């Protein structure tokens, strides 16, 4: 199965104990599939049911594919300004 690197930030990076994770996902995996996989990892309970996910530096919908689509990142609730 393809390996997917997922970027983590802020409270999510703290919860998983790393700034990124590598997960094996089938080629047709969606954002929702990725979230399900990550929620079962140690620290994954920090994630809400539908966390924000960015694919190729834009917010993605739960049904969007994640493999070979560019950089994938989990986005904690933003708090800039």
């Amino acid at each position: 199965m393809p390996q997917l690197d997922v970027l983590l930030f802020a409270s999510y990076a703290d919860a998983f104990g790393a700034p990124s994770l590598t997960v094996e996902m089938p080629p047709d995996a969606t954002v929702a599939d990725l979230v399900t996989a990550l929620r079962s990892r140690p620290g994954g309970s920090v994630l809400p049911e539908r966390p924000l996910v960015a694919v190729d530096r834009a917010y993605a919908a739960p049904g969007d594919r994640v493999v070979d689509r560019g950089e994938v990142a989990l986005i904690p609730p933003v708090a800039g300004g």
Partner: protein
Amino acid sequence: MRHAIVARPIDVAALLAEVTVDANGAQSVFVGTVREQNDGRAVHGIDYAAYDEMAQTELGRIVLEAVARFGTTDIVVEHRLGTLSVGEVSVAIAVGHPRRAPAMDAVRYIIEELKRRVPIWKREHYVDGTRGWVEATTSAAAVGAAHEQPGDDEVSGEDDDA
């Protein structure tokens, strides 16, 4: 127009000067600074962190939206990252326009969208020695429910912090 995620102090007067041109009669500016308290806790500083590349991209999208909506290209936005002390400027937005209403509307649009969409996080340093990431007052589930843009279903863009 211009936007930047920077790691150095923000020069608000320079931003204002950039948007003050002879065709404009109105300049509107918003400046966000580190406040000495948040949610009832005394704060002595804040770490600002970002998903840098996406923050740049998303902030650029917001500026282009403002150009199209409000009809001016005299827009400059800077957001600072790193550790800031109380009173330091974290974000500044300056817009120049021939008329005052769209100048003010554009600034408000940009700060509200920035706070909803740009992947920047802050960790407050409390006077009691502890630290904590600031979570938006809306639940993460509510934010996640909006696919294209976080927070579409928020009741108000006004979270508790400034």
